[in-house]
């Protein structure tokens, strides 16, 4: 149980700024996911919290107390990393029990705790096997069990599920999250997989090039991305982006494509937020695929398009639509089928429209 703080943390490797003035507070009992592409600084941030890296500037705090100078072992955190480095000469049971042995926990207590965590992870039947006799999934479970057998203040996990196949990963993330909901240990979890982040997190902190982009619940980040980077990174298929110019007189957006200009009326519901914009300002209109609604008849404020390809994913259809160089992706239920010769119009759901400043790439 702990509150973890990062206050203006900077970490450099030579010329490279790996973590660039990151401030973040992780609440007691929270499951926070650090999300971003490879090289964004998420693992460096985690290692700094663990004490495996010294920070160049700023503070790492546990329950409000600076721990910059405390060694990893003094911080009472349990790690589980992608390379799960089990002791090859020890059985699964002894691997899991090891952290407790080093703390001189009585034998009966060790046995109780190992059994408890192993029943949660469903690995009681592999106790006597050594790591090389275990499947990748079971090795991963043993590594998780070893991290979870202690009741530390904090769990730090770096892509712990990334070596597993898709099905097992989906099942394990459920188990992991359930255990955390039960024991309420503050957890910081690093991943590059936005699906995993959305599924597991209380809040997501999304990073790019060392800079913290946004912190919020999965719903907030999905619905109100703070930057173009976040909007593009979260969600699959990605949000649609249309470059446009703001026309202040008519409160509309001029979308240029191959010489023609489409005039798109800004929905009333968001006009009030736009009064500070300059006439002619360059904007990016963002809209999620599920908010691109296809119509087979002309529709007011609609854009006429043609269908290029429909991807049938079983549970949903993904339609790729085009008008000259404009490309729009629409997500519909699997029953919605159109053909390529058909005239189609799309309508953008007003509630789903997001505007970004093209220059700063920030949400308006």
């Amino acid at each position, binding site marked *: 149980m702990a509150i973890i703080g990062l206050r203006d943390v900077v970490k450099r490797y030579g010329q490279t700024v790996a973590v660039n003035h990151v401030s973040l507070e992780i609440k007691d009992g929270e499951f926070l996911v650090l999300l971003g592409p490879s090289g964004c600084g998420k693992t460096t941030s985690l290692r700094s919290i663990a004490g495996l890296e010294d920070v160049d500037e700023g503070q790492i705090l546990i329950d409000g107390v600076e721990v910059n100078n405390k060694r990893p072992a003094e911080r009472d955190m349990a790690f589980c990393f992608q390379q799960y480095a089990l002791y090859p000469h020890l059985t699964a049971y002894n691997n899991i029990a090891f952290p407790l042995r080093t703390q001189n926990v009585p034998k009966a207590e060790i046995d109780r705790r190992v059994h408890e965590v192993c029943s949660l992870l469903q690995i009681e039947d592999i106790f006597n096997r050594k790591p090389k006799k275990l499947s990748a999934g079971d090795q991963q479970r043993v590594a998780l069990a070893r991290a979870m057998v202690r009741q530390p203040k904090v769990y730090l996990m770096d892509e712990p599920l990334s070596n597993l196949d898709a*099905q097992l990963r989906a099942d394990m993330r*459920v188990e992991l999250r*359930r255990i955390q909901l039960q024991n309420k240990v503050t957890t910081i979890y690093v991943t590059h997989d936005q699906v995993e982040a959305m599924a597991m997190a209380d809040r997501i902190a999304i990073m790019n090039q060392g800079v913290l982009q946004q912190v919020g619940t*999965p719903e907030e980040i999905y*619905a109100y991305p703070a930057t173009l980077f976040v909007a593009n990174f979260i969600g699959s298929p990605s949000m649609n982006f249309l470059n446009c110019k703001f026309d202040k007189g008519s409160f509309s957006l001029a979308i240029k494509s191959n010489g023609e200009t489409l005039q798109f009326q800004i929905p009333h519901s968001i006009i009030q937020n736009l009064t500070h914009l300059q006439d002619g300002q360059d904007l990016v209109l963002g809209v*999620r695929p599920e908010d691109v609604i296809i119509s087979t008849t002309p529709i007011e404020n609609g854009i006429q398009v043609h269908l290029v390809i429909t*991807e049938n994913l079983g*549970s949903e259809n993904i339609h790729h639509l085009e008008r000259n160089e404009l490309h729009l992706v629409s997500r519909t239920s699997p029953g919605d089928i159109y053909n390529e010769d058909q005239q189609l119009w799309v309508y953008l759901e007003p509630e789903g429209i997001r505007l970004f400043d093209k220059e700063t790439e920030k949400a308006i």
Partner: protein
Amino acid sequence: MSNIQLLGLTKRFGDIVALDDVSFDIGPQEFVTLLGPTGAGKTTTLRCVVGLEKVDSGELWVDGENINNLPPGQRNMAFVSQHYALYPHLTVYRNMQFPLDKTNMSKEEKNARIERIADVLHISHLLKRFPSKLSGGEMQRVVIGRAMVRSPRLFLLDEPLSNLDAKLREELRFELKRLQKESGSTTLYVTHDQIEAMSMSDRVVVIYKGKVQQIGTPADIYSNPANELVSTIVGSPSMNLLPVMIEDGVFHVASNGHHANLPELYKGILPRGNYNLGVRPEDVKIVADETPNSIKAETYLIEAFGYEKLVQIKLGAHHLRARVSPRMALKVGDKINILFDERKVRFFDANGNLVRV
């Protein structure tokens, strides 16, 4: 634009049967995907077709011609593998020109071809660059472009997108499919990624342990998987499989003893016995009120994805997943009633095979 037929291909490596009587065909301009987990025999199949492996038995036919004994160089097939190698000392243009060097095509024709394909692949601006100056996605496009300039009879792609990050994969998946559609090249594509298979293919061949499990359109394989194995390979999250006991027009859920009426379609058809009920997450409905056909359950975990929620549901010791609207208010531990969409429920017999009605 060729017609390819694989007839009873068998291939052994020592004691291991890598391919066991594999038969399927690829029609002119068709996009067929071989889907299966690692070690299923996908790449071996591809290597046999292209001629890099000799089959132990079985026949390979292209447009009515048996090609079993034709050396790889004479099969006129283009092969793109996962490990793509461009010549580092040649520009993109020269890399793409290379396969045409040995042809007697005129210089103008070669040039026109390279430019047309570069245009389709959006790499026209890269033609003068060297491979070391390209991103992973750009490199992959060049490799595909190099394979396409020859207009081969068959285009073989072995996991061409697997080394790319998720966003780029999504983008290239669409571009590759579009390219295939526009050029009309007959294509055999290999992947372990069911989303690629579902989204790109005209037909999918699901293969496991060297045996073809099912051949069909993506929609057919998704709604009528031939066996439990296919049901778990296609779809994410995969189809729920729930052990049930069927008697007198009712199914009993083994893990919590609840029961409900069999869908009309199956009444009087399924003999008494144990089955696995298969139902896709989107066909598990969470309903407000108990109905004669609803089953009592409890929510175990809720995962919110923005455009949908996945609900992990506990039925005694067994878990199911339901895909629901993001607006549905639910929390962990809620007592709920669930209902399966009658038209979408499937049953698998004791051997794991789909019961067809």
